[in-house]
């Protein structure tokens, strides 16, 4: 059973690697952010698989933390875009 779960975790890890291609190529920053979101979910899945495979429950806590923080970077990204928009408006007004 553990072997199968490790193999599944490895497969999801491979998907993470493929998702990285999107971060590499973009072309837009929103694409990069979307890819980061996918990788976050992949990370959560990997952690859950590892927790069950290695019978070490505290790993689930890491997954819980990661799931909570998954939205965090994306929100910061959107705020950054807004900040830029606001500034350019302010410059236009001048």
């Amino acid at each position, binding site marked *: 059973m553990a072997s199968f779960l490790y193999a599944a975790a490895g497969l999801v890890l491979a998907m993470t*690697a493929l998702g990285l291609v999107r971060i590499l190529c973009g072309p837009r920053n929103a694409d990069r952010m979307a890819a980061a979101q996918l990788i976050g979910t992949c990370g959560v899945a*990997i952690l859950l698989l590892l927790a069950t495979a290695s019978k070490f429950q505290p790993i689930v806590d890491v997954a819980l933390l990661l799931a909570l923080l998954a939205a965090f970077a994306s*929100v910061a990204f959107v705020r950054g875009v807004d900040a830029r928009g606001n500034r350019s408006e302010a410059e236009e007004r001048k």
Partner: protein
Amino acid sequence: MSPATIFDIGLAVLVLGVAAWTILVRDTFAAVVSFVVYGLLVALVWVRLSAVDVALTEAAIGSGVTGMLLLGAAARLRPAEAGATPPSALICASAAGLCTLIAMGLAATTLILPDPAPTLAPAAMAGLPASGLGNPVTGVLFVYRALDTLLEKVVLVLALVGVWSLAADEEWGGTPEISATRQPDGILTFLAQLLPPVGIVLAIYMFWVGADHPGGAFQGGALLTAMWLLVLMAGVRTAPATGLVALRLVIVAGPVIFLAIGFAGFAWADGFLSYPAGYAKPLIVIAEAALTLSIGVTLGLLALGPRRCMASAPPPSWASGCSASSPARSCYAKFWPSM
């Protein structure tokens, strides 16, 4: 090879690849996003190294809060990016050479360790039963090497003082600017109202289980930070003015309480930072509770930085918009008392 070994090799290759990409890429935003992903993968590495406490810290601080800090900086520095000249090849080459040399030296030292590697684990475990704790890492942080932990808190506070002193004179003690446009019905507001209660419960849980299982003050504090910043970014609450006395009290409360417990050790136990027999665990839990709150606030303020308005822009008109009162604020007043 077992699937676990293959997984580890794949993970190592991936981490190295992301690290190389993060350093080589020219676009700041792409570098920051890959750094966030890098932090996530490093957290996985820590899990594979059986260091779940570190994985929690890395996931929360290394990936989450640092990512937010760098994303904000990248967005602010975007105007400067176009005119930037890449460093000369000589500088790049010498930096790369130096780093490679240091890395090789460190790797060699790690590899030539004698086979039963030197370890302090037995020494650390020996003191554990006396403290009543079940998690060896917390034991090390608060018993075996408590002085390090105390000094680290002081470093945090000093860093915050440093960040604040970078504010311009007229902005001293002002409110850290955070680009928040509040939309009462916005999806972001919904998230900022839904997640923080869950996050706070999880933070308290982490601090509480920290005594016996992976978790502790750092992880709980970092999680509090993340939730606080989420609320600020959604514009549900405004950031506190950095000049507020109450805020500064919260910041120093953790180190001061820890220090007080340390000095009490002179009176009731063997010396500085030693706990009287039988009272070790309650004292550690008290110190940890205070530290969790202090760390949460200090990390958040570090990420927010000093009050910073762009020199070219007039005071942002939307800054007043985000302090508009709303039903949500009264509901959040219990969680986020205006500090």
